[in-house]
């Protein structure tokens, strides 16, 4: 089921700024799309509008060819998983999963044995067989999340909407559930949209990622596109790590201070021919120690261990903002050392573009 959000705008009563500002998104049938961004960026609002839990100020939502904008949340047949899981405390796990089927009108409700069979089948699918008789209070966080997912799947939804599904879990459980969700998606093929502020999760799980900030979509693309070819300065600084250097553009050439920086053509993003701006470089795209025509002068500010490698904080061309560089652990640089550095890749944005 293809989902299309067209030009969605939403301002909450009494709010000074819009939560969503003309956002459009198309999710292909069977796709797993992540809505990624900082808190307050509008991701959950967009998800709830697609579900029908909130009404947009303007804009439409399409499920397939059908305009779902006027439909109630019940009519849209979505499966929504809340951040807090919100399992019904007074029901057992099985009754929770069966809830959506139990509340159907008599005409559409399957017989009791059928409902029970389906609930147990779903519990098998989420690998919680044997816990059917437990109450939510007796389950761990990860188990509760899977019950919430089984409950949403029970009504055979046209689209699965997950609001920060792994937000409240600890890191190890989060990682396990991430790969489990990927497998589940491959198995069931539901069109899925999930909201997260964790970029690792988004880049690892999603077919495509939509980066939202301040109520607008900054970029939609595959994880590779988002990471390697950020469209705006915000996306560049939000995804992965990047240091920003003051730079300027003259005659189509990027300069840091007086030095021209040769960037691979694909990474030069400019819309004008000249101006002041910033050059974003990732720690793995700077090399220390190779002197040459392209190299810039830098001073080591500090060095620390970072997992298997070291991280050096350096000041390039005596700029005030420092930049981080990955260095091999075999070489130890000392603070105060003057070293030549070469920039392999970077993204240049004119001031005023992006953020």
């Amino acid at each position, binding site marked *: 089921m293809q989902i299309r959000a067209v030009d969605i705008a939403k301002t909450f009563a009494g709010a000074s700024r819009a939560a969503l500002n003309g956002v459009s998104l198309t999710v292909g049938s069977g796709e797993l799309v992540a809505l990624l961004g900082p808190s307050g960026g509008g991701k959950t609002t967009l998800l709830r509008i697609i579900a029908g*839990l909130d009404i947009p100020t303007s804009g439409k939502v399409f499920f397939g060819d059908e305009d779902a904008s006027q439909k109630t949340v*019940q009519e849209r047949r979505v499966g929504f998983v809340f951040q*807090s899981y*919100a399992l019904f405390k007074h029901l057992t796990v099985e009754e929770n999963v069966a809830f*959506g089927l139990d509340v159907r009108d008599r005409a559409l409700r399957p017989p009791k044995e059928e409902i029970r069979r389906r609930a147990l089948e779903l519990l098998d699918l989420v690998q919680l067989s044997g816990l059917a008789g437990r109450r939510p209070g007796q389950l761990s966080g990860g188990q509760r999340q899977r019950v919430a997912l089984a*409950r949403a799947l029970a*009504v055979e939804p046209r689209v699965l909407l997950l609001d920060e599904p792994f937000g409240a879990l600890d890191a190890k459980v989060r990682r396990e559930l991430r790969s489990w969700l990927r497998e589940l998606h491959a198995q069931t093929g539901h069109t899925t949209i999930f909201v997260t502020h964790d970029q690792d999760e988004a880049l690892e799980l999603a077919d495509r990622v939509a980066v939202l900030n301040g109520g607008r979509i900054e970029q939609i693309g595959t994880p590779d596109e988002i990471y390697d070819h950020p469209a705006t300065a915000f996306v560049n600084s939000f995804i992965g790590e990047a240091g920003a250097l003051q730079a300027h553009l003259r005659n189509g050439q990027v300069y840091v201070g007086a030095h021209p920086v040769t960037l691979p053509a694909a990474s030069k993003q400019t819309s004008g021919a000249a101006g002041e701006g910033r050059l974003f470089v990732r720690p793995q795209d700077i090399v220390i120690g190779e002197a040459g025509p392209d190299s810039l002068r830098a001073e080591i500010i500090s060095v620390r261990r970072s997992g298997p490698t070291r991280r050096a904080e350096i000041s390039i061309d005596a700029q005030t903002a420092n930049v981080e560089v990955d260095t091999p652990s075999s070489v130890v640089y000392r603070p105060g050392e003057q070293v030549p550095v070469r920039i392999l890749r970077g993204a240049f944005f004119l001031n005023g573009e992006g953020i």
Partner: protein
Amino acid sequence: MSDAAAGLTTPIEEPWLATKAANVRRARSPVTGEGPILAGVLIGVTILFLALFLILPLAVVFYEAFRNGASAYWAALTEPDARAAIGLTLLVAAIAVPANIVFGLAAAWAIAKFRFPGKSFLITLIDLPFSVSPVVAGLMYVLLFGAQGMFGPWLKAHHFSIIFATPGIVLATIFVTFPFVARELIALMEDQGTTDEEVALSLGAGGITTFLRVTLPNIKWALLYGVLLCNARAMGEFGAVSVVSGHIRGLTNTMPLQVEILYNEYNISAAFAVASLLALLALVTLVVKSVLESRFNDALPGKARGH
């Protein structure tokens, strides 16, 4: 702790002194540091206060009720006027409590789950019966529905009495007991938020189904608690009922009013006999309240922890 004994020099020849001092030091509460003497005084004052103002009066009620023996007690309770008073009290409670359950549920539902203009005004209105003197509440109904009241002539023309009749008593009782159910529920429902209901809706449940199968189970203990308090007040209300009732023996007297009448006639032991029923109601309410609190601590308002 032994470092605090720096000032205490105990000769080694008298080890029993050292032990005693150590015991006193150990008895001191480790965190708040009050001595056992201060704790004892505080507990003693509390017990004295409770005894004087709570236990003693209740004990006296039962003592005086049975002063002339069990048969006199029974006779006092089965006397026609007393029976009518008991019956009227039960009737009023049987109408007022369900009415307040409905009003309270509706008000709590609207306040906790929706945003609408005038919401804070409504919340203030709900608290009004608590701040208004019960006598004023009763007077309010007299001014509205009494013979010289706003609707007086209309009611008279339709041969319908509210004041000095049962309807007036019921209305006055509903007014003074309204906040109990509503307040217990509002606090809890606001705490619980709307997420559970949204889940039910997203799974395809309609409004009423959601209310019956999701909202009600979540609030049932707070509801019971509110009903308990509402009932106790409904049966024991004096001031407002006194103003609207007219004190017509056998017709418009509730139990509290009957107690007053009997007492004013110097029929002390009969007065206490009826009063003992009210005291019994108070005790039963307290016991059920304690049971509810101890068994369902986390489902009651104020102690609710969201999940």
